[in-house]
């Protein structure tokens, strides 16, 4: 009697242990395992130091820009010509996407309806991202960013292996478009009957559109320079 009890409890313990092992194993399979955890931790710490570096660079850039602005303002005070040029310069830089901007508009988030599928719908229909941008432009967007990448005249949206390149940076879904312009018009253009939002939903991409009164869109994050195109002077 006693031995049976003992054996049964051992049996139970073994069962529980077996279950735990299996679950642990499955977890490891689903969640990448110990190696990925180590790699992820490595990457996370690298990311942390890279972020710190970026922040300090941004801080220094701001300081220099402040100085330049002070010089320009001082020059504009004494010379009307300088003042005119300063305004034109600001406008040209705005058009080129070289300044941070704010304004009302929409935030459009595109994500997969069913995530974790073997085939990511965005990689099949990446050209739809171009269409969304095109519709926003047609509806009068004055500045657009996709995943915080400012859209400038040379911004590409392109499938490159297992990610999508925007300004030569790599992205995976979700894709967040921010567009400054008339919120009503921008929203209506996307939500048009038979329009892009319907099309995306048909392909299994969910579209959320939020109208907002104050959107921040960052400037183009690199130095923009042309190597081949030069101004025509006559």
């Amino acid at each position, binding site marked *: 009697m006693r031995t049976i009890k003992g054996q049964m409890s051992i049996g139970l313990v073994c069962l529980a242990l077996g279950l735990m092992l299996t679950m642990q194993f499955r977890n490891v399979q689903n969640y990448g395992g110990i190696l990925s955890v180590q790699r992820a931790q490595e990457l996370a710490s690298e990311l942390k130091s890279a972020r710190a570096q970026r922040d300090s660079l941004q801080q220094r850039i701001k300081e220099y820009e402040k100085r330049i602005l002070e010089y320009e303002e001082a020059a504009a005070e004494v010379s009307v010509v300088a003042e005119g040029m300063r305004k034109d310069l600001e406008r040209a830089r705005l058009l*080129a996407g*070289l300044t941070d901007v704010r304004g009302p508009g929409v935030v459009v988030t595109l994500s997969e309806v069913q995530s974790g599928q073997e085939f990511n719908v965005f990689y099949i229909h990446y050209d739809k991202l171009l269409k969304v941008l095109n519709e926003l432009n047609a509806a009068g967007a004055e500045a657009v960013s996709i995943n915080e990448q400012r859209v400038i005249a040379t911004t590409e949206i392109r499938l490159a292996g297992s990610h999508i390149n925007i300004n030569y940076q790599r992205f*995976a879904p979700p894709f967040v478009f921010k567009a400054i312009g008339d919120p009503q018009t921008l929203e209506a253009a996307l939500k048009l009957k038979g329009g892009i939002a319907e099309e995306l939903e048909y392909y299994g991409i969910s579209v959320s559109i939020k109208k907002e009164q104050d959107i*921040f869109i960052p400037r183009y994050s690199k*130095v923009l320079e*042309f*190597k081949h195109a030069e101004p*025509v002077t006559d």
Partner: protein
Amino acid sequence: MNRLYKNTMVLIAALFLGLTFTIQFKSSQEQVGIVTSETVPQLENELHNLSSEIEGLMQQLTDLRTRVREYERAMDAQGGLNEVLEQQLAQAKVLAGLAEVKGPGIEIVLDDSSWELTGDNDPNLLLVHDEDILTVVSELKAAGAEAISINGQRIMFNTEIRCGGPTININSVRYAPPYTIAAIGEPSILYGYMSGQESGYLDLLEYYGLQVSIEQKDEIVIPAFTGSVNFKYVRTSKEGE
């Protein structure tokens, strides 16, 4: 006595085990959250983006330093900042698409199909669509084009390319085929990209029967944007906002 001792041991072991589990779970949560098989590539992308952003910021900083030095030198000289501002303005206009530019590049011409329309093919397949041009333009940008125009209309940051019945609207101006897409950049790279396996999109259009031609040029002139951009909603975000 012996039994009590055993029970206590089991209790201690169980407590220990529970603690270890909790610590393990908490520590892995704190560091990177739960690591899924998608986490690593995600982090890698993020790191790649951040490194290239840092590179860009360093360039910006170097640029700004030079600018500050130029400004300081100019302020000491006669005429103040005017000359420097003029230079800055000319440069910004080129980047914004407000100045006519020239340079080497390629020219792509797209035209509707010359195939006869028979009863069983879809006439839609024989036309150049807005989406075709949109994709070609995006591929050109990916290949490194610096300035692009379609039938002489400069592509700006907010240019729409949109079907308006039989014609296509670009910067709110109507155009009909053939569409001549001009791009300034390294001609061999642009040509290789657009005609080779890298893009393959032009081949696809040709397969469907559209008339496609692509040619390298030593000099292409791309006009300035002549329309107007009315900034009604956007404003520059100054520091401290």
